[in-house]
């Protein structure tokens, strides 16, 4: 089992990335994880869904958006998160079912696509693709746009930490 918290740097653990530090075109390195029935069940409970009612080819399948809980980790492993990030937009395209009754080994990687300012906010857009490890089959692709607060918008305790480790 790979819980998202096993692979995802968490806000406040290390200095959060400044917007100026995101490099457009940068590759977000491979992240491998094992999606298990336990994680699928916990995710589906968190979105008020029960996987028992979803089937494909006679087998229980996960709501494919379960991959959402690993999405930000692909970015954060290269660019650790600042406190107070807000999501602006998110796109997902699904390509293959994920069985809900067995473990699935998945590899994800991505790319910084764009960064821009709009109405005084600073945004980063990045893409991620998720593939099954054993045969390389594409499971899903995603494009996420998030905005991260400037240093002065960080709460004081996080601001101080940023200054200490910068």
């Amino acid at each position, binding site marked *: 089992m790979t*819980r*998202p*918290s*096993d*692979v*995802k740097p*968490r*806000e*406040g*653990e290390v200095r959060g990335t400044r917007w100026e530090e995101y490099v457009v075109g940068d590759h977000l390195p491979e992240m491998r994880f094992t999606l298990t029935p336990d*994680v699928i069940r*916990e*995710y*589906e*409970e*968190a*979105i*008020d*869904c029960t996987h028992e*009612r*979803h*089937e*494909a*080819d006679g087998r229980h*399948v996960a*709501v*494919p*958006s379960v991959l*959402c*809980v690993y*999405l*930000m*980790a692909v970015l954060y492993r290269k660019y650790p*998160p600042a*406190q*107070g*990030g*807000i*999501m*602006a*937009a*998110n*796109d*997902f*395209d*699904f*390509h*293959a*079912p*994920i069985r809900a009754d067995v473990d699935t080994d998945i590899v994800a990687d991505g790319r910084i696509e764009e960064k821009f300012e709009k109405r005084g906010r600073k945004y980063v857009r990045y893409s991620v693709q998720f593939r099954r490890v054993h045969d390389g089959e594409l499971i899903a692709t995603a494009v996420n746009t998030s905005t991260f*607060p400037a240093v002065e*918008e960080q*709460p004081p305790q996080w601001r101080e930490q940023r200054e200490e480790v910068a």
Partner: protein
Amino acid sequence: MSAMRRTYHVTQEMIDRYGVINGDRDIIHYDAEYARQRGFDAPLAHGLMVQGYANDVAMDLYGPEWCRRGSIKVKFVAPVFPDEDIEVAIDESGELTATGPRGVAMVGTAQLRPA
């Protein structure tokens, strides 16, 4: 194609539970004082949690083809706070909205790509 809608009652406990499986520690989802400092009335529900609701509705609407040809594109246009009812609706053309007591919170599309 038919349409579907479903209403979710969002609580702080649900936001906390999503934060556990999501593996984050972003205090804008948990710290009411910090949320107010940032100009919000209360902690924010995770955007991907609200999008998760829409995915579940889409899976019921489109069936297993959603796993093979599903395409969801959303913009988060307003926050969702604890103790709000959010109605997620996908219409006949695949237009997606999530609407709460203060208006539309998420817009987009949830459609099948051509086979």
